């Protein structure tokens, strides 16, 4: 038995179910309670769980992130919502210096089971400060886990896993996907971290991506299929841990690889996967791993320019053609 629900409601169900099951779990963030969430992800949760467990905060990301970390050290399981990960930069010290290192600094005494979640990536003409893709910035740091849901099913399954995880988990959602609907099972389920999934099987070229850009990858794959290039599209699902095995197995079959990462290219998740694939598949690759990223510029506001800056099906198709010498 499955149901068709919105991506945002999948996130809502994950939080609500875990909060019903475990009183240590609570949600905190800007506008999450009375406003039902700036993007309505937490709608109804204040009514069900009350103001002690669904908490509106001031615009103090560094403050309430640190507060969540202290609460996690004492054994609670906070879910901290960033209205957008773009606003997490003011909290960088707490989320990068404290959360991922507390266990190590304390010699194993204090863990930090906390989930930081919110919108990541260009939201649609939001300009330079509001369009951050933080995956490449934050994935560099050991001690944290990072997951990026692609659809409603993954949103619920990955978030439930994140809440139960004993480590700090960064869940990067996309505002652009919140309203898409998808099937989720009636019965409870979780999705293990570190297990990529093949969204489209193929034989000629491996495309690796995460989250929203996967839709562009699949779009490009359809187009390329018409040209006789059969792409295998892999959704990495989690960046830390990264499921390299699934990627390598695919590349050993296709001998070509394109990585699509919505963040800037330099020192990115994309460069990391490219470097690892080259290392693991040096003899299998018939060409260098090609990469598609957002252009190396701050996000512009103007619609056409922003579209041009972001990864899209056209760029992906071009990269695949180039990678497979069919350009």
């Amino acid at each position, binding site marked *: 038995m499955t149901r068709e629900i919105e991506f945002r409601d999948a996130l809502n169900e994950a939080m609500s179910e875990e909060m019903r099951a475990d009183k240590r779990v609570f949600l905190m963030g800007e506008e999450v309670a009375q*406003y039902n969430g700036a993007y309505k992800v937490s709608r109804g949760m204040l009514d069900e769980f009350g103001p002690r467990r669904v908490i*509106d905060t001031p*615009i103090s990301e560094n403050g309430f992130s640190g507060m969540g970390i202290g609460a996690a050290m004492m054994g609670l399981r906070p879910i901290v919502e960033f209205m957008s990960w773009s606003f997490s930069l003011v909290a960088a010290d707490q989320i990068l210096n404290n959360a991922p290192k507390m266990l190590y600094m304390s010699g194993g005494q204090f863990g930090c089971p906390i989930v930081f979640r919110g919108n990541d990536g260009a939201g649609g003409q939001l300009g*330079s*400060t*509001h369009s951050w893709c933080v995956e490449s910035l934050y994935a560099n740091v050991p001690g944290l886990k990072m997951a990026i849901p692609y659809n409603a099913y993954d949103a619920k399954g990955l978030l439930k896993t994140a809440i139960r995880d004993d480590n700090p988990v960064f869940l990067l959602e996309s505002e652009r996907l919140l309203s898409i609907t998808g099937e989720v099972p009636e019965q409870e389920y979780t999705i293990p971290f570190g297990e990529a999934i093949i969204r489209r099987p193929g034989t000629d070229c491996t495309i690796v991506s995460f989250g929203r850009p996967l839709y562009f990858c699949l779009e490009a794959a359809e187009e390329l299929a018409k040209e006789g290039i059969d792409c295998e599209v892999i959704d990495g699902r989690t960046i830390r841990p990264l499921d390299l095995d699934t990627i390598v197995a695919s590349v050993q079959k296709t001998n070509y690889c394109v990585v699509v990462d919505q963040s800037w290219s330099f020192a990115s998740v994309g460069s990391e996967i490219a470097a690892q694939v080259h290392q693991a598949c040096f003899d299998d690759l018939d060409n260098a791993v090609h990469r598609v990223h957002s252009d190396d510029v701050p996000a512009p*506001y*103007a619609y056409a320019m922003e579209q041009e800056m972001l990864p899209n099906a056209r760029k992906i198709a071009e990269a695949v053609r180039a990678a497979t010498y069919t350009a």
Partner: protein
Amino acid sequence: MTATSTSTPSPPSDPAKGLSDAVLVEWLRDMLLIRELEVRCMQAYQNRKIGGFCHVYIGQEAVAVGCTAAVNDNDPIITAYRDHGHALARKMDPKYCMAEMFGKIGGCAKGKGGSMHMFDKEHHMYGGHGIVGAQTPVGAGLAFAAKYMDEVINNKKNSRVALCFLGDGALNQGAFHEALNLAGLFDLPVIYVVENNGYSMGTSIERGTTMAHDLSVKAKAYGIDNIVVDGMDVLNVYNGMKPLVDHCREHSRPGFVDMRTYRFKGHSMSDPRKYRTRDEEERYEAEDPIEKLAAVLRKRGTFDDAAFKALASDVRKEIRDAVKWADESPEPIAAEELYKDVYVDTWGPFTGTSMPEMLKGKFERP
């Protein structure tokens, strides 16, 4: 000048005294211009001509107009993302403001910034900033530079004062705390004007900020002079700001203003405003700053309904032309603009920088 801790605005006996009709009419026109721009802005947003986030200033016009009137034209100002009013109050031509929101090359930022990033170098407007509170240390830097240029480079007395506007929600950002401490410590001539409209999105100020009933303590914590001003009356705003501005300029000291105002519309274009009552909204709508000033002028007898109508239609025309101009301004061409203005110099894929049409001939370099 001593700090006022009273949280009940005390309007001067005869605010209008000493201000010529011409001045008041200009203020009225500025407020009407902002109001009209915002109204057309909301329409344009509905018609998808404007994208992203758009925060209108309707209801708060007296703040930007009264504050900028209290400073000199070359005093730097900076604000947050609810910035259309400040841009116009600083005399940015509405067409550049509108074109920016339309994402056109004719915009003040060539369509790269959008609604939240109104910059105008000619009029000493330093933006337009999207991250809550982030403009407050930058504002301190504007004052630092103004003072440094006068006193360190030109060996004369400080001559400028900076205005840094922020929302009440920004009071809770660490950046604000650090900025005020630095301003107090270094005697920076910067005035922090809190546009206290009572809400940050759906959060009423007392749900997010301690001591919301008396913000003077937020200034006293840094030994900074503060005043409370009724921001719904432009005469009040001017009369409250002017002495503080003069004081801060003269003594090169920071100031803090709890500017009581209200946004008549939602936080942004998508806000049902369930967090406040229609009743409350009507109470404030009755305080419309434009009506208030018009009434004062009428009382003076020098300004009748006809004159008001004339002014209003004149303003409507100016904004209509601005919208038309913005509509006709071409979209920026990605091939030309995407990699421009990333770095001042040209290297790799980066094509250097260039001034927006608004400043062509006025400035060569950033």
